[in-house]
């Protein structure tokens, strides 16, 4: 899932300084699961903002609502009747949600309350680790299920480099060397041949905004036109 963390409070407060009536919008999917931007986090943030603005003698009126998914127009529809009465929107969704919200209400200033951090896994409650950079060219089959793009600090395709430090990455003793792990995993599976061949230069697919249309589907405008 997408992992986010809340922005520093002062940064959020600063963004909202010119506004006196703001709707804080949570998202009920990824950011709710990773405890950054769900219904509960919306309530906490609003309470903090309310308190801080009162202390500043600049009170703010805050609304709160959490939609199922901010990255889906269908779920944003419910907001249409609400946003009109607010000066600005504060989104606690990931960057995708923030942008969809801003696209739907182009005349309304929309501010992000979280920093979208990575695609990751839930190691324990409140503890998340990055696993995927969505590079569009998955090589996990070759590398024993360990991503060199994400887990190797240099994103090497023919590792490990000379900085491997007793199984750790050169950047940090607590960061395992991805290629050391790849070697161990493939060795265990008797599949080291998989990385003996040279991986050629990657034809990066993530250097411009990407669109996916699954087989059997069309862009909505094309579908409407009956193409």
């Amino acid at each position, binding site marked *: 899932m997408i992992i986010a963390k809340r922005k520093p409070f002062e940064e959020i407060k600063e963004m909202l300084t010119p506004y006196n009536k703001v709707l804080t919008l949570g998202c009920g999917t990824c950011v709710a699961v990773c405890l950054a931007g769900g219904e509960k986090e919306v309530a906490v943030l609003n309470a903090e903002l309310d308190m801080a603005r009162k202390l500043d003698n600049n009170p703010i009126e805050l609304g709160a609502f959490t939609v199922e998914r901010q990255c889906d127009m269908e779920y944003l529809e419910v907001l249409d009747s609400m946003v009109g009465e607010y000066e600005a929107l504060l989104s606690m969704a990931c960057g995708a949600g923030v942008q969809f919200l801003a696209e739907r209400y182009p005349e309304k200033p929309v501010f992000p309350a979280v920093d979208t951090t990575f695609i990751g896994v839930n190691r324990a409650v409140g503890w998340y680790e990055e696993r995927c950079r969505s590079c569009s060219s998955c090589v996990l089959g070759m590398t024993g299920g360990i991503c060199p793009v994400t887990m190797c*600090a*240099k*994103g*090497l*395709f*023919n*590792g*490990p*480099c*000379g*900085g*491997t*430090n*007793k*199984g*750790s990455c*050169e*950047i940090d003793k607590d960061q395992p*060397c991805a290629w*050391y792990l790849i*070697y*161990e995993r493939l060795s265990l599976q008797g599949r*080291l041949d998989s990385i*003996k061949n*040279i*991986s*050629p*230069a*990657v034809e*990066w697919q993530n250097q411009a905004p990407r669109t996916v249309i699954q087989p059997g589907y069309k862009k909505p405008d094309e579908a409407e036109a009956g193409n």
Partner: protein
Amino acid sequence: MKSGSNLEKVLEAGHFAFTGELGPPRGTSMEEVKKKASYLKGNVDAVNITDNQTAVVRMASWAACIMLIREGLEPNFQMVCRDRNRLAMQSDILGAYAHGIRNMLCLSGDHQKFGDHPNAKGVFDIDSIQLLGMVKRMRDEGRFLSGAEIEDPPRLFIGAASNPFAEPFEWRVHRLAKKIEAGADFIQTQCIYNMDKFREFMKRVVDMGLHEKCYILAGVTPMKSLGMARYMATQVPGMDVPDSLIQRLKGAGKGKVAEEGIKFALEQIEEFKEMEGVAGVHLMAIEWEHRVPEIAERASVLPRPEV
């Protein structure tokens, strides 16, 4: 001849190669480069010019290489994958060759986190093995990575690094094989201190016949002090400094550690001259360039061959 560089000619002729290293300045003055070069001139076959080593900004490697050529030395142009994408790499290679650079060492590069701009965006568009393949393609096929033709392709003698000491040890020889397959004509190893491990590594290299496919230069860095030895042992990732060496340096007594460090280096060089598969030594006398003439003299590698 692939490049006709002095280093290539020395190695092709079967001489035991001896290369040095020099770091470009943290500013625009060439005086320091000239001074360091003066200690190396006539004592080495080629000089590696580092590329923002330890991820600290310095003068461009190719620019310092040009200065070295003007001083009458042959540079070995180092290029790391951290700071440039494939476009910048290929354009720098064209420029370097046009200015007379004939040797190039392809490296991954230290992570930017270590350097003076720790939050810089690391490029790593391609890795060191892909870079080797790209330079080879430019030379042998006269084509850019994209496949487009190059007018008057750069004919470089292509080098790579190898660290026999970084884990997993068993994989190191296979990674070396990948580098040779990708295009490495010569290899310069990480600084060697653990001779037992290096002997084992070279045995595996010879068993696989890799020494017949490229020239392997053993990396030597004399220990200047006990502090340096301890730093190398504990702070430099992928470095293997056995405790026995630290004890030996310690035992040398006050004021004599540097001499003991040189003695150890000289013993290493003697052994490398006889070691199967080793074609030369790469002497990395870091900020100790003024001691290179003495080390070369005492290592009996002078005069350098004229080829």
